[in-house]
């Protein structure tokens, strides 16, 4: 800078413009330490949100079919679909989860120990228990349906496997799988997840049940199966569950307060506001209150299913954005905002 006079140089002397520091370089907008995130985000790719979605559906299907069974509502098509769905989801889930591991061939190390403090460990064991129960129950169904042939073994399975008892046993484990997908996210240092530690599990579970009811309704409609009463109950339960889900999401947003910002960012808002809030909850609620037709019902179910998927993707993406934002983490980790051991709420 040749044109700088001695005088101006002296004036600047007290107000030094250091090389590129955020605080002195007015051109730089990054804050704190050169805008470098103080925490690291999770590497999880698309398999994880899809697993969260499938796990939620599995939990909800288990809830509905088990309740139907216990309450004496007889619908063979519903039972059959419920049992096969549980099996298929419990085959897909581990595949997706193992796929996402950095060292997939070592997946069995998850079974080395059981750690109550680690939601990931609890999740792995819950999947083992629920997966095996679902397998047994589905085997009995397959034997009854004649899919396993007419040998001695299928006959023994059909007679000896106590499917009803096992599905009651599997229910709490399935519900744990569905809710723990949310709790798992909240037990991290990521502000948007950690701040909402109490409602992450309930929100994911409510969304799981609503997507499961829609899934059942959609499949029954597709195959022209199911009793009339089943459809009626599904519709009624769907309406109530969607309302609970909406309430939980609203409460979550209040709880997340300023750290919910990523959900409304340009990249995630279409997914969260458009996909989940409007497409997955508001529109289906409106459609469910009108007259019921097969086409409309199937359309509504599809919307709810896509909305639930959008919610999982939005939450995981928002977590990445939240972890990448130094401002969010530092404001969160200062003072009363972060969860403290002595906290009651």
């Amino acid at each position, binding site marked *: 800078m040749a044109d700088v006079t001695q005088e101006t140089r002296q004036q600047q002397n*007290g107000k*030094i413009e*250091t*090389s*590129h*520091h955020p*605080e*002195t370089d007015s051109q730089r907008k990054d804050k*704190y*330490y*050169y805008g470098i*995130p*103080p*925490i*690291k*985000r*999770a*590497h999880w790719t698309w398999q994880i949100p899809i697993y969260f979605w499938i796990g939620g559906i599995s939990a909800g299907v288990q*809830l509905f079919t088990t*309740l139907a069974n216990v309450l004496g509502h007889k619908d063979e098509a519903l039972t059959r679909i419920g049992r096969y769905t549980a099996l298929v989801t419990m085959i897909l889930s581990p595949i997706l989860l193992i796929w996402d*591991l*950095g*060292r997939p061939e*070592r997946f069995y*190390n*998850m079974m080395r*120990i059981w*750690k109550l*403090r680690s939601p*990931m*460990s609890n*999740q792995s064991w819950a999947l083992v228990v629920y997966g095996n129960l679902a397998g047994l129950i589905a085997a009995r169904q397959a034997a009854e349906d004649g899919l396993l042939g007419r040998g001695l073994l299928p006959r023994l399975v059909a007679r000896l496997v106590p499917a009803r008892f096992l599905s009651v046993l599997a229910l709490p484990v399935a*519900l744990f799988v*569905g*809710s*723990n997908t949310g*709790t*798992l996210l909240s*037990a*991290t*240092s990521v502000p948007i997840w*950690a701040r909402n*530690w*109490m409602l992450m*599990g309930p929100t994911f579970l*409510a969304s799981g049940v609503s997507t499961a009811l829609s899934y059942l309704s959609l499949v029954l409609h597709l195959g022209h199966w199911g009793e009339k009463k089943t459809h009626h*109950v599904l519709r009624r*339960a769907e309406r109530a*569950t969607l309302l609970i889900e909406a309430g*939980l999401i609203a409460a979550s947003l209040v709880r997340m307060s300023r750290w919910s910002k990523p959900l409304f960012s340009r990249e995630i808002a279409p997914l969260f506001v458009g996909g989940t809030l409007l497409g997955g909850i508001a529109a289906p609620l409106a459609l469910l209150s009108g007259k019921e037709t097969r086409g409309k019902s199937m359309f509504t179910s599809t919307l709810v299913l896509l909305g639930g998927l959008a919610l999982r993707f939005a939450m995981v993406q928002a*977590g990445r954005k939240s972890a990448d934002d*130094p401002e969010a*983490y*530092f404001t969160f*980790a*200062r003072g009363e905002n*972060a*969860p*403290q*051991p002595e906290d009651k709420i």
Partner: protein
Amino acid sequence: MATGFLTDTTVCIGCKACEVACKQWNQIPADGYELTGDSYDNTKQLSGTTWRHVAFIENPKKQRKLTGDVDLLALAEDVHQTLPGGAELDGLGRWTFMSDVCKHCVEAACQQACPTGAIIRNEFDNVYIQPDVCNGCGYCVPACPYGVITQVPEDGRVFKCTLCYDRQRDGLEPACAKACPTNSIMFGDVEELKQVAAERVATLHAKGYENAYIYGTPEIGGTGGINGDHSKFILMDEPETYNLPAHPFLPQAKVKGGFVASAVAATVLGAVVALAFRD
């Protein structure tokens, strides 16, 4: 005996010998040759392949006019004395260096998150990843309140400072502490280092540096549930200046609460669905 680090940032000269020694001893791959333009920091942050990282903070906090003859040497040394003609010497502020490392938390979030039990506390009470057990699930990465533990994509597993477990077993101090030319990085018994840190901070206070403090003890600042760190630091500025959180917290403290809330939600949802079956 619990061992740990004490990193005294007030005597760090930013030579990066610790970074080099760490890479060399632990045979960690290079990170490339990116020039960031962010002061002299081209390493940027701790990662799976960087277990020591020297931060360069150009601290322009004290912005005062310099008048009269300026003694540049005294300026650089941050000497406080009245000069003829009312000249002030601390106009430049400080250029601070800080060698960052895994904090080896007393209650480690990464260790609690690990579902395989790969992350353990070894006989020196350091947080250590067993590389033959880790399956790369990556759950410890967002759990760490300091952003230390990181997955190496080419390998799949996560890595971080081992506090030179192998050297310690042979009675040697960690490579970074050995290489540090100003003794900014001290290694030893955690209790002893606590003493050293307290004395050093007292000395600094006596010299007029009132803002010096120890980072990583539960006594100073609530380290919510982490219970302090085995690698402590002597800092001269807000923790955020060094890219450290003021009050790190233990994320797993709320797992039980989340479980109870989920159980309540499951009961309510079950009741609602059951009610829908009524005629």
